[in-house]
């Protein structure tokens, strides 16, 4: 426990304190302010839980979360089982497709589905043309649409966790059950599924928390009575109605508290329930079944069905991006590059901003993440677990909470928000865990003996780091770098509160173009551009990291 380690830890804590703890505590403090008297008290909270409207939004959000979790689970369990257990061709490509939504911006899906499933979208028009229906079916406007769109976005989290679980189960457990005479279904529900619960929970909690974070999907669908959308409207539309602003902040704090406590609860539960097998010989591939023909066909149909839904997003957006006024036509007829001309000529700043802000955030992320991972894995500095804990907690924080807290905290006292550096800083804080987790797991995989050997041979610690550790870490770190960049690139919930004229990023541009009404085509084109950029980045990662599955979620199990 050298002094260097301690001072490094102190420095990292200082950064955490300034960029995470200070703004978030500012947010909490602000929520206790009373607009009428200028004093302090819990009356805002009392009002929040007494007002039928806020209660309704809270209830709506909880209901949506539950429905979302149910839907993703019902769809995810068979999917994960198929992916993990069945031997079939095209496994990699299906896995990649089904996991794709993780890296696609959440709002991209909404635009695609409005175009495809809208009242006069492709499906409805086709159905009407064939005379199957008289009036358009409402596919997406309403709670069912929200569940559909959000479920598709969150499905990978369930599938990833579960399929990892299915793969890692020691086959001997199931075989034992089989020998004892348990039927297939009984075995699945009594042995296989319980053994997977810890890995399922890790994804499930993220799914459950998503409706507390996603304000844009409800807003675009015109269903605003959900907690994050209401807080967005309260804070972004009513700057001067101080009371409403405080109520909005209360809503943010409430959702943050819900998120954090559920996250911690799940973590604690997973820790407690971790099953430990006593067997030794597990095959790396797990148990793989060669299913019968009808099952195989069924599995393929099912996977193709999900894959098509996922693929709809880039395909529909691509079509929309290269056409203008795609209305009342099942497929566009008027092809043009006008959308891209408008984006590239009139607002090239958006693309530049996106790259510059995400890039600078990435520099911060690396500068913070590498030493932090080193501290957490390799040293015994006091407080390193707490450091890990705080950083992981950022995963559960709604983006809105970070955006609002930055706006409040860096406005008067420390006027950072008047300079554009606030944008990359906020992105850095919001995406903090992504790089760190990657660096963290790479460090874990790096055998200490290599470093020790280097030091024994007389190399200094720094020399060891640059000549031994870094090259060995490089692969994991690079995957982390790209993942961090992708996540920062598509971030909107935080940035939307902080941007000013000239600082717009691509996601904000998409939001503004949608909000301005007639620019649906441009918004779609921008979303398509983002998807293309993300694809290219992913390709790079898969080259480095090997396997698109890994690329999508780093090293899988966290």
């Amino acid at each position, binding site marked *: 426990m050298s002094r260097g380690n301690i001072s490094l830890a102190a420095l990292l804590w200082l950064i955490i304190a300034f960029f995470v703890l200070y703004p978030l505590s500012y947010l909490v403090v602000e929520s206790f302010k009373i607009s009428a008297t200028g004093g302090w008290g819990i009356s805002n909270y009392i009002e929040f839980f007494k007002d039928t409207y806020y209660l309704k939004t809270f209830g709506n959000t909880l209901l949506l979360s539950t429905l979302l979790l149910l839907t993703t689970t019902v769809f995810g369990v068979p999917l994960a089982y198929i992916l993990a257990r069945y031997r079939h061709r095209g496994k990699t490509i299906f896995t990649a497709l089904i996991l794709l939504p993780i890296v696609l911006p959440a709002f991209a899906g909404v635009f695609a589905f409005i175009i495809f499933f809208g009242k006069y979208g492709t499906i409805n028009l086709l159905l009407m043309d064939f005379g199957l229906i008289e009036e358009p079916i409402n596919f997406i406007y309403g709670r069912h649409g929200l569940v559909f769109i959000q479920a598709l976005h969150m499905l990978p989290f369930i599938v990833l966790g579960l399929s990892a679980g299915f793969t890692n189960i020691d086959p001997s457990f199931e075989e034992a059950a089989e020998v004892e005479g348990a039927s297939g279904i009984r075995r699945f529900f009594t042995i296989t599924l319980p053994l997977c619960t810890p890995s399922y929970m890790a994804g499930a909690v993220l799914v459950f928390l998503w409706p507390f974070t996603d304000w844009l999907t409800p807003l675009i669908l015109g269903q605003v009575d959900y907690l994050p959308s209401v807080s967005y409207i309260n804070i972004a539309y009513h700057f001067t109605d101080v009371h409403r602003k405080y109520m909005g902040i209360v809503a943010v704090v409430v959702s943050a508290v819900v998120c954090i406590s559920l996250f911690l609860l799940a973590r604690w539960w997973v820790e407690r329930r971790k099953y430990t097998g006593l067997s030794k010989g597990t095959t790396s591939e797990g148990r793989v079944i060669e299913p019968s023909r009808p*099952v195989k066909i069924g599995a393929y149909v*099912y996977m193709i069905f999900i894959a098509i839904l996922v693929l709809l997003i880039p395909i529909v957006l691509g079509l929309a991006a290269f056409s203008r006024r795609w209305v009342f036509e099942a497929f566009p007829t008027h092809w043009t590059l006008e959308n891209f001309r408008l984006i590239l000529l009139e607002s090239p700043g958006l693309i530049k901003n996106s790259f510059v802000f995400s890039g600078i955030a990435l520099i911060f992320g690396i500068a913070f993440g590498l030493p932090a991972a080193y501290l957490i894995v390799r040293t015994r500095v006091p407080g390193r677990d707490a450091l890990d804990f705080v950083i992981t907690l950022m995963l559960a924080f709604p983006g809105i909470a970070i955006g609002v807290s930055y706006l409040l905290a860096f406005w008067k006292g420390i006027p950072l928000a008047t300079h554009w550096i606030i944008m990359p800083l906020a992105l850095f804080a919001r995406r903090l865990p992504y790089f760190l987790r990657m660096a963290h797991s790479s460090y874990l995989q790096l055998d200490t003996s290599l470093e020790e050997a280097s030091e024994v041979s007389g190399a200094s610690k720094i020399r060891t780091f640059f000549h031994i550790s870094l090259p060995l870490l490089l692969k994991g770190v690079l995957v982390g770098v790209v993942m961090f960049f992708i996540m920062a690139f598509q971030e909107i919930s935080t940035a939307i509160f902080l941007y000013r004229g000239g600082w717009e990023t691509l996601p904000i541009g998409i939001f503004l173009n949608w909000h301005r009404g007639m620019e649906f085509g441009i918004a779609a084109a921008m979303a398509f551009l983002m998807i293309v950029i993300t694809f290219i980045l992913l390709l790079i990662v898969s080259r480095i990291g090997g396997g698109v599955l890994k690329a999508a979620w780093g090293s899988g199990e966290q």
Partner: protein
Amino acid sequence: MRKKILATTIFTVFAMGLLLLPVLAGQAQAADKIGWVGPVYKELSASLNKGFKEYYKKTYGKDVEITFVRPGGWPVCVDKVRAWAGKPDADIFLGAGAPAHEVLKQEGLIVPYRPKDWDMVPADWHGMKVKDAEDYWTCFAPWIVTNLYNEKVLKKLRLPPPKTWNDLLDPMYRGNVVHTLPYASGTMHEAIEILLQGFGEEEAWRYLRLLAAQLSRFSTGSTDTTQLTARGEVPMGIAQPQMNAMAARKDGFPVKDLLPEKTILVPEAVALLKGAPNEAVGKIFLDWLFSMEGQKYVLEGRYFAARTDIKFSEWEKEGVEMATHAKKALGVDSFWDLQVDFIEYDLDLATKRWDEVNKKYEMEIYRKWGELKNSLFLIEEIEGEIEAAKALQKDVTAAEAKIKEARKLFEIDGAYAAARLAATEARAVSAAVVAAAAPAAKAAPAAAPEMQVPGFILILLILALLVSVVAFIVAFKRRHH
């Protein structure tokens, strides 16, 4: 030792990041600057941006850097300026109608400036103010509050376009209407003000409650309304600036506007913000905006030009592309030649109750939307039952009185829960009368709250379940053998 160097590395990387700042920030130091804030549409800001940059370069031999912020509709923009509290991040308040500018004037957030060609804009029109007599704000792009409909979709649904405000309440349009909230859009606010001043307050709130039951949803802004209507997602959009139909038609959308029988002029105006950091450039911009050249860029930005000495037919000859569309959309050669049924509009009253109206609408209608619809639908259902009982020669006077009370509670008082209760009582009364005659008849159960049909999800769920169940059963069977 190693950590020291590690720490130094971190510092270096951070420092590098910080060093980038002045480099990137310093790029744009050379040009003059001007900032606009306001709710105008993108086409206008883009057109003015282009025109003013050219003009500035030509006249002053320098570049001008323009920033434009559009935080939202008028009320949101006004709030933004309020939040700046006299230290604005912009110089010009670009757009929004008279009430917004009056609010800013009263709160001392704008300063008077008389642009050079100020005289070319009329002082008032049909009793409505077009510019401020004390030079605080001047209209540069007048328009009229209209409603919008999608020709193609209405035809497909076999619905005639509604002609008047009251037509919109027809049950056949239910679920095919959309509008936004008055706090999100100035146009919606003005539409409510039209109803308040044109029909009287009680009647207006009654109307708004009934209209809310017709909506398929609330949009998030008047531009969102335009988009939804143009794309046909909801075929009728309430409270739209007149030029939106022109712009959408030019883009090829089958959209038409309806001038309702009662409406007002909205003088889309411009003002100089108090404490503007680039006041001199701001004044140059205002002078240019009202010049013949500036007004052409206004029209090219798909807004109607405000000068009285403009003839669209002349501009058409000069090659102003939008002049043709404007002539076609308005049917006259200058905006000021329009003949419209205007109400008598009290601007002072509108300014005074600006926030109050927005709040009332939100609290009484928007936040209780679900309750409102449930209540009205139940009342309508029971009214139907009473009518049916009446047709069977039953004496339903008591029930009729009760249901009338329920309607009054709903329409006038906005007491939706109480109205529901009264309606249920009316149902009980009428059911008792009917039951007395025919003991077998039973009262229908109370209407269930409206449920959204999760048809799609349901189908998917069943499909997935079926597939997975079959897969599992077969798989396990197979393994057993």
